[in-house]
Structures are given as structure tokens and as C-alpha cells.
């Protein structure tokens, strides 16, 4: 284990940051960056957009947020293209080689096999997390809590899709407030290796600092081996987490 983290670098890919950045999802990038920099790490963020190539094996952590329908359709089409490098295959190989991914909402759906809208053609995903999504009859809007084995995640869900977890992935946790993946089976989010997906905006990471640190630890381990992140003064983050959780129970 390195004696000090200072000078270690972390490479983040912000997938389709221009198109898929709705509901404050870039707050997750901010939280990852700040909490890494506060530990003396050097962070680089590369925004990878439509028509751009992704360097194989380069990034430690991929972030993929949600977007409007129009943008999500354009992004799904770009992910299916093979003429400018196969981004789906690049990310899939990276996840198999211990890279980390956080995907939210539309990004979560596109990390799965497909999203089937009410009308219009099916959007193919890149099939990294074994989930499928389809348009549902209702929109799930509200504060939400997912209880995972490692701790609670609190955020805000806003989706009409129903997502179902297949045998090749594990539910990320149990939804204790809100609808979670589909409002039916009680599951919230999904994970495969170090790729995580869920519907929580909020932004998710700033007020769930334990999860941010888990992602950072796993991302650093890919190239730098096991690291232990020194603790930070998280009073404000904990207060926000607790008040958001109380708000979730009060408004459910």
C-alpha cells in the first residue's frame, strides 16, 4: 500500500457530459474530484462526447448521467457506432479489468441491454450491467433511499422506466423509500463488478460520501493497488444525508 496518496493520479471519463447532465448529475463529478483532491490526488476529467474516441484501458472511473429523451437517443446511436472506435467494447473490457463505473438514470439504462420506449424504436445499450428497461405506465418522482449492504444511499428519483435486474448482475440494494428499479420487486439499482447503476439524482455522491469514497478506493486500486483514504471532516455531508433521509421518510 502506498505510504502517501499525494501525487497519485485518478483518471475519470465523463461520458457524454454535454448531452447527459440533467438533474445536476455533474455534482457526482464534483464530489469525486473534490474528495480526491482533498486527499492530495491529482484528478483528470475527460469529457467524451458524440463522435469522440475513448482510449482503451486509460480511465479508472467512468461516469454516465441522465439526459432528456432527444439526447439519450443520440447517445445510444453513438454508442452503437463502430466507425469511430467501439466505445461499448472499450468500457466493457475496462470493467472486466477492474475499472469503476457510476451510472445514473439514462446512463444506467444504456449500461444495460436496452431501453424500450412506448413508441419509437428500442434503444440498444452496451450490456455491461445485466438489466433491461422499458417504459412504464407511471412516473416515479420523489425522494428515495436504497439500503445497500455497505450503507444507505439517499437521493431523488425521477423516471418512468421499469428496470429489471437479470441473473448476471446483483441488485445494488433494497429500496426502503421510493420505487427503485421498477416499483414492484423492491430492488434499487444494480451492480456488476465495480459498475454501479441506479436512479438516484440529488446529486447522489455529495450527500453519500461513504459511497464516493468506496468508488475512489476501487478506482485507485486499479492502477495503484490497495489504498486507504484518510478520513475527512464530513459534518456537513452527514447533516445533508440525515436531513435528506428524514425528508424522504416524511414525503414518501
Amino acid at each position, binding site marked *: 500500500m502506498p505510504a502517501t496518496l499525494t501525487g497519485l493520479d485518478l483518471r475519470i471519463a465523463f461520458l457524454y457530459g*454535454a*448531452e447527459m*447532465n*440533467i*438533474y*445536476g*448529475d*455533474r*455534482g457526482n463529478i*464534483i*464530489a469525486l474530484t*473534490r474528495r480526491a483532491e482533498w486527499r492530495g490526488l491529482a484528478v483528470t476529467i475527460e469529457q467524451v462526447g458524440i463522435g469522440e474516441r475513448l482510449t482503451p484501458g486509460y480511465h479508472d472511473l467512468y461516469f454516465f448521467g441522465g439526459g*432528456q*429523451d*432527444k*439526447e439519450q437517443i*443520440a447517445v445510444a446511436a453513438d454508442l452503437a457506432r463502430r466507425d469511430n472506435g467501439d466505445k461499448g467494447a472499450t468500457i466493457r473490457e475496462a470493467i472486466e479489468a477492474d475499472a469503476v463505473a457510476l451510472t445514473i438514470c439514462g446512463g444506467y439504462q444504456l449500461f444495460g441491454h436496452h431501453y424500450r420506449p412506448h413508441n419509437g424504436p428500442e434503444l440498444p445499450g452496451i450490456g455491461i450491467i445485466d438489466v433491461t428497461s422499458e417504459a412504464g405506465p407511471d412516473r416515479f*418522482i*420523489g*425522494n428515495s433511499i436504497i439500503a445497500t449492504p455497505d450503507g444507505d444511499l439517499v437521493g*431523488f428519483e*425521477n423516471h418512468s422506466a421499469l428496470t429489471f435486474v437479470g441473473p448476471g448482475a446483483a441488485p445494488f440494494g433494497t429500496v426502503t423509500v421510493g420505487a427503485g428499479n421498477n416499483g414492484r420487486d423492491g430492488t434499487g439499482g444494480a451492480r456488476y463488478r465495480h459498475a454501479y447503476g441506479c436512479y438516484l*439524482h*440529488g*446529486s447522489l455522491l*455529495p*450527500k453519500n460520501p461513504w459511497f464516493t469514497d468506496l468508488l475512489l478506493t476501487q478506482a485507485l486500486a486499479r492502477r495503484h493497488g490497495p489504498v486507504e483514504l484518510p478520513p475527512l*471532516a464530513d459534518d*456537513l*455531508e452527514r*447533516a*445533508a444525508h*440525515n*436531513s*435528506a433521509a428524514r*425528508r424522504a421518510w416524511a*414525503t414518501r
Partner: protein
Amino acid sequence: MDPRLTLALLGARATTLAARLTRRGGGTAAPGLVAERLDPAALRKLGAALAGGALVVGGTNGKTTTAHMVATILDKAGRRVVHNRSGSNLVRGVLAALAAQSSLGGVPRGDVGVIEADEAALPAIVTAIRPRFILLNNLFRDQLDRYGELDHIATRWRAAVATLDADTTLIVNADDPMLVGVTAALPRERIIYFGMAAAEPAAVDRRLTLDVLPHAADAATCSRCGGRLAYRALYLSHLGDWFCPACGNARPAPDIVARDIRLDGVKALSLSVEATGDASAVNSSLVIRHSSFPLHVPLPGLYNAYNALAATAAALAFGLSPGEVTSGLAGFTAAFGRIERVALEGREIVLALVKNPTGFNEVLRMLVGGGDADAGLATPTMLIINDLDADGRDVSWLWDVDFEILAWGEAPLHTAGIRGPDMAVRLKYAGVAPGRIAAHPPGELRAALLDFVRAAPAGATVYILPTYTAMLEARGILVDLGAARDFWQQ
């Protein structure tokens, strides 16, 4: 005489009276609900009775201020104006306002209507009222859990304006590519475009132009070909002198242009307006002659330059003279809560509503730019964030605001409200030194406000930036402490 309409107006009046007697506050929408039940066509009938026609004002930001400006200019010019002044802008709120300003026989106490419309309600309102003018000011990302996605609103607006008669003229912000897309199918002579003209590049003021699209702005895409737009000048969010490198689509030349914008801190702004003289609609009564005149607006911030320009375009379209516009705006006071000054315990409080990322960005830009922009914010500031329906239940939008602008400067930053703790975290992650952040717990706003005000030296100015329901709550506390008046008495 229309007995059904009279019954509806009686019902509205009785509801208003009952609300006043039981002291349930302004009672802004319930009378509309009653009137609508008694006569579903009441809104259409009252709108049609406005002899001078109506103006419906839509847009994510600035619609209350802009509608207020137009009403003030018309009023000072001697026109009798019917206006939903309280900002109650859903279908029933508009109906309630028109009902309250009409005789029981259905005759409005005015000849022109100025109607502010909520984005989601705008299609229904314009379909019922059939206004002479529709002013489209901007489309920004709002609290999306309330309205659905921006494209969806643009699509509904496009459908609504397509159904209107040829004698409805659109007054459109040419700097907003989404709005130009909304009205692109209409004949050019039915549209009056307004927009800003860039200063000489050498004289560009950082408060007037942006180097990059703010994070709150949606990816600006061409409504014609879907390509990424580029800007010759970018003024505010995605508003600017835009063009599409892929297909050649570009900002239409504005008929009403703002130049030489000067911002005077948190107090006022000035600009010069040029009407190019090209705007004439199929309706022959609408001719805007060439003119050029200075405007002084006693409101701060670049966003209010857009509001003033929009109001000017509307007033000119109603046939008013440049002189009437200038004098109408000179004595303008802000709409409720948008920008207010009150005194409390020897401190001056400037209250500025923040309701979505773009609005928040613009208020921060105004406050930080009020002093020496390089020194950052020097004035103590309290941010009050609620998450009730009218605020947007999802506070994710705080992460789309560029609070990084507050990382410079020494000013203490207080956070309060139901989601004050989220705001405190946002400030910390924006790079604000934790020692500058005073996080007040939710549910203790009165104590938090007093603590905040008393922490500032006597004679100081402080800023309070609340979301909508936080503004109502804060104002209620300030009223209680003797610092402000009830809004419906203004």
C-alpha cells in the same frame, strides 16, 4: 348579458370574500376554480371582452417582472390594464384575476390585458384567450420534476402557437434558439424579434458576456438540423448571437435591439434600444417605426436588461411611443420578491428570488459583479432552499448552479431552509472555505434570519436569496418583525 358568466363571476367573488373573511391569505386561485366550474368558457369570454386585446407573457424566467413592466408602461400611458398582478399564473389563477377585474356583467375594468402564463399552462391560456400578442421571453431548465423536460414544453408551445389566428403576433427573444425553433413555422411578418447586440469585443464586460455555456444551460442544438450551435456572442445561459455551423441556421435579425448595456451593481441598469423599423404584422394597425432611445431601468442584473427589452418590444407593439416606454420604466418597482429592499434592525436586506439554475446564476453574477468582481462576494449572504412543490421537490438543480463564483471573497454564507443542509454541502464542494459557511438546521428559519442579520454590523447591507416558498416564509417573518408589507396590498 350572459347569465352563465355572471353566475361564474358571482361565484368567484363570493369565494374571494369568504377567503378574506377567514383570513386565508391572498386567495389567488380558488375563485378561478369556482368560476371555471360554473362557466367553463369564462376565460375565453373575459379574454374576448378586452377591446384593446391581450398580451400573454411566457418564459421560464422573468415573466412576472416583464408582465409587470408592460402593465406599468401601459398604465402610465393612460391605458386601463387588466393584469394578473399577484403572479398567479395557472389557468385558474388567470381566470380569478380577470374575474376580479370585471363587472358582474362580464365587462373588464380595462381595455388591455397583460397576462403572465406559467410554462405548462401557456397553451391552455392562449387557446382560451386568443391574445393579440404572445411574448416568449426564454426557455431555461426549471425544476424539472414539475414540468417535464424542456423539449416537451417547446413541443407543446409549438403546437399551441400553430393553432392561433393570423392576427396573433408573436414577440420572441431572437437570442433564444429554442424559442426561434418554437415559432419557426410561422410567417416572418407575424413575429417581432428582440435581442441584444454585442459590444465591441475590446470593451466586453465580463458581466455582460460569457466565455462558455454555463453548466445550467442545455446543450444548445439546432432546431432545424440537430447540430451543435455556436455563438458569436453569448450573453446569458444559452441566449446569444447564435448560429449553426452545420446548416447555416442563425439568429434572426432582431427588430428591437438592445445596445450599450450598462449595469449599475445591485441597483439599476441602462441600455439603448433601437427599433429597426422593419416590424410590421399582417394586422395593419401594427407598425413599429424606426426609433432609437435610451432606457434607464431601476432594476439590477443583465437578466433584467432582457426583461426591459422584452417589455419595450411589447409596449411598442401596443402602439406606445418611445417616450411612454422610457417614462413608464423609469419609476418601475420590482415585482413581489424578485428584488426587494427592506430594513431590519438597522441593516438593509436585499431579497432576491432564486428559482432555477439560470436565475440563480444570474443573481450570483449580479451580486458578485456589484463590487470589485476580482475580490469576489464581500456582502454577507443567506441562501434559503426549500423543496416544496413550488420550489421543485428535487434539489439536484443546485448542482447545476455555478456556485464556484462564491469561492473567492470573504463574505460569510449562511444556509437555511428545508434543504439548507444540501446547500451547505454544495457551497463546500464549490470550494468555499468551510469557515465561511454557517449551516442553520432546517425548521428554524426565524432564529436563523435573526442570527444572520445580527451577525452583520449595524448599517450593513446583507443579501437573502430564497427559493419561492422560502421567500414567502422569510417575508412572513420579516413582516412579523415589521420590515415588509403583505404582497397583495402592494
